[in-house]
């Protein structure tokens, strides 16, 4: 176990040296969220950290009270029990104080929720639309519409076929690609059963429901590689339909879009040239 702990400390050092924006993957032995890649994800993490302080304090408080009564009011320490069963001021206190704590939480919670939900009112040129279908058991991505429509399926790489730099159970053959610094408006639906699309580093998750079109948005400022996994039970291969998002600089994104409109393979080839996974791992070590 000792060597394992060393390994995971080393690994997290590697990951953090990658610069938080470059890749977000789960870390062995990790304790918290994956590093945030969007401003909103950062806000979610900050809010979660506040909650962690609050719930940590409450748990500690209850624990201390429990230990205190066990030490002070056990049969040996206090042979004769008191008989009181009411204390109005304290009952009011433990009703009102939690309400106040909840009000503090709500004060932070609601603005965050509304910010996440409402797609910012920006010029259409700042928005990139992508559609995705959840299917048993892969994701399909659609860019554009009509004659210009680009369509490709995104399947998990089997363990035996993993290339250097790819992550088992997370890497896919054809990742979703989006430009950095733009507002990505993702429309999500499904063609068979319910799935859910998520990228933990963006702090977004939305169900892909047949017959229903859901929308989410995110804006990633730095290029990088991000992973997520289907998050609604969808059958036998639920664990094997991950999500990979590649964020490229605007100009590279545009070139990728041209190439991928020729063929999915051409798009992928370009992607590997401008954002090779093996090189990232090499530079990290």
């Amino acid at each position, binding site marked *: 176990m000792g060597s394992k702990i060393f390994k995971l400390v080393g690994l997290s050092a590697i990951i953090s040296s990658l610069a938080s924006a470059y890749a977000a993957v*789960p870390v062995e032995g990790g304790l918290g969220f994956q590093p945030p890649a969007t401003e909103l994800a950062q806000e979610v993490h900050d809010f979660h950290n506040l909650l962690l302080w609050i719930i940590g304090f409450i748990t500690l408080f*209850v624990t201390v009270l429990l230990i205190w009564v066990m030490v002070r*009011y056990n049969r040996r320490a206090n042979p004769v*029990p008191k008989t009181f069963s009411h204390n109005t001021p304290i009952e009011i206190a*433990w009703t009102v104080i939690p309400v106040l704590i909840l009000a503090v939480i709500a004060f932070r919670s609601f603005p965050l929720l509304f910010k996440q939900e409402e797609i910012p009112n920006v010029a259409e040129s700042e928005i990139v639309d992508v559609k995705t279908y959840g299917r048993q058991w892969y994701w399909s991505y659609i860019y554009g519409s009509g004659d210009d429509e680009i369509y490709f399926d995104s399947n998990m790489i089997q363990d035996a076929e993993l290339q250097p730099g790819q992550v088992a159970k997370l890497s896919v053959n054809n990742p979703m690609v989006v430009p950095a610094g733009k507002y990505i408006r993702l429309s999500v639906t499904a063609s068979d059963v*319910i799935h859910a699309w998520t990228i933990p580093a963006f702090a977004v998750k939305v169900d892909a429901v047949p*017959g229903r079109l859901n929308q989410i948005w995110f804006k990633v400022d730095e290029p990088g590689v991000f992973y997520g996994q289907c998050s609604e039970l969808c059958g036998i291969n*639920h*664990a094997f339909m991950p999500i990979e998002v590649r964020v490229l600089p605007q100009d590279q994104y545009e070139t990728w879009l041209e190439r991928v409109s020729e063929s999915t393979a051409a798009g992928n080839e370009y992607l590997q040239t401008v954002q090779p996974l093996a090189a990232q791992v090499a530079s990290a070590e």
Partner: protein
Amino acid sequence: MSSDSATAAHGGHHDDHSPSLYSLSRWLFSTNHKDIGTLYLVFALFAGLIGFAFSGLMRAELFETGFQVFEDGQQYNVITTMHGLIMIFFMVMPALIGGFGNWFVPLMIGAPDMAMPRMNNISFWLLPASFALLMLSMFVPAQATGDATGFGGGWVLYPPLSGTVGHGGVAMDLVIFSLHVAGISSILGAINFIVTILNMRAPGMTLHKMPLFAWSVLITAFLLVLALPVLAGALTMLLTDRNFGSKFFVPAGGGDPIMFQHLFWFFGHPEVYIMILPGFGIISQIVSTFSRKPVFGYLAMAYAMVAIGFIGFIVWAHHMYTVGMGVELKAYFVAATMVIAVPTGVKIFSWIATMWGGSIDFTVPMLWAIGFIFLFTVGGVTGVVLANAGVDYSLHDTYYVVAHFHYVLSLGAVFTLFAGWYYWYEKMFGVKYNGMIAGAHFWLTFIGSNVIFFPQHFLGLQGMPRRYVDYTPAFEYWHQWSTYGYYIVAVGTGIFLIGIIESMVRHRKAEANPWGEGATTLEWTLSSPPPFHQYNDLPRIR
């Protein structure tokens, strides 16, 4: 008063001879609330061991990446689905409501039996039938074609995965029948509790003098009567969608899969309070008994449960933040959900205040009760985190949720169950258990279940999704801890079973009231075990 007529009816004959333990008709045709309670407990023990074994298969599978125990995801999904359904419908509910409720509600309110003893019999005997259907579903085809068997769509049964698209075989139909039968069983039981508690309390026992355990069962029974018909409706619609061409949840026919989720959770959220409220009642009795002090803030405790039960009905969509609801609707459910923390806090603090100034005996049931208060607090505060939709997007359907609901159920409801078991064991079975063995059971379960579930918070925060048969290697580290924890609990469970056998073999004679002056409720005024028919002369409450 109805209680007077009950006196007359039972005063006529003094039949204290209990039939032989080995008489089949005693158990099959039983109308005695204590015998039926025992049947429920034995059934829950049996089903619980199966559910526990299933979780062992899951933990063994998840010990490493790759496939260890199962051949594919379907088998794993079937086992997780069955684990959930068994633990909820065939372990926690039968044990807490059917078992302890049947045994102690009549004893505590000074009633000779349940109001409708024959209905009580059918309530129980529907359950083994229902359980048989559920078990059978594991061995019949999952799909219209192919070799896969069983229903692997999770205990929430979401269509289209539970419809013909996802599970076209007969397995899901058997699950539907099973839950229909279990639902009828629970509704009949709940009606019986409501009628008994409202009509058969001993003279002088007003509602506001009734022990909190009876209160908790009364509230639970109301939740059951209101919630289960909604589940039955949703299941029936699913059944007709699958078999008779209706399109309630089929988008291609104008239906909506999300509608099922609303109906399911309108039942499903009260259901989680159905599982924990009787436990709240048990903890109140135990904490008061072993602190040798009356319950602090009795009325607040009773009405906090009423409040929790009521609010429990208006928060259901917090299970559905990611389905694509309007933001205002989400905001409402965030607010309503957080409000539950207030009455729950009242209960936690009142238990501590009951101990405050007391003279605490650290008996085995008291250990379980104190353990419960701590663990329920841990599970409760993560519930406050999850209530916030903005954070829930990151945690929904991850192991953080698994950790949260196992802290409140597996370490909450189950701890209250064992607390009640050791509190009333002597009363029910007429023998004393071995305190050393029971203590070992507690400590192994307490440590082991924390080792199982605490690391799952970390997994969830890192993004590990629920219901995954396999995972990326980075998640292995905490999964291994979790599986080690399971082994500790498994040893504890073995010791629990040894403890039962030891107590039966040694047969140490039980006392009527082993707990002393702190045990003030009526069941301690009777012998252990109580006579086959009690209260031929109704007790009078001052």
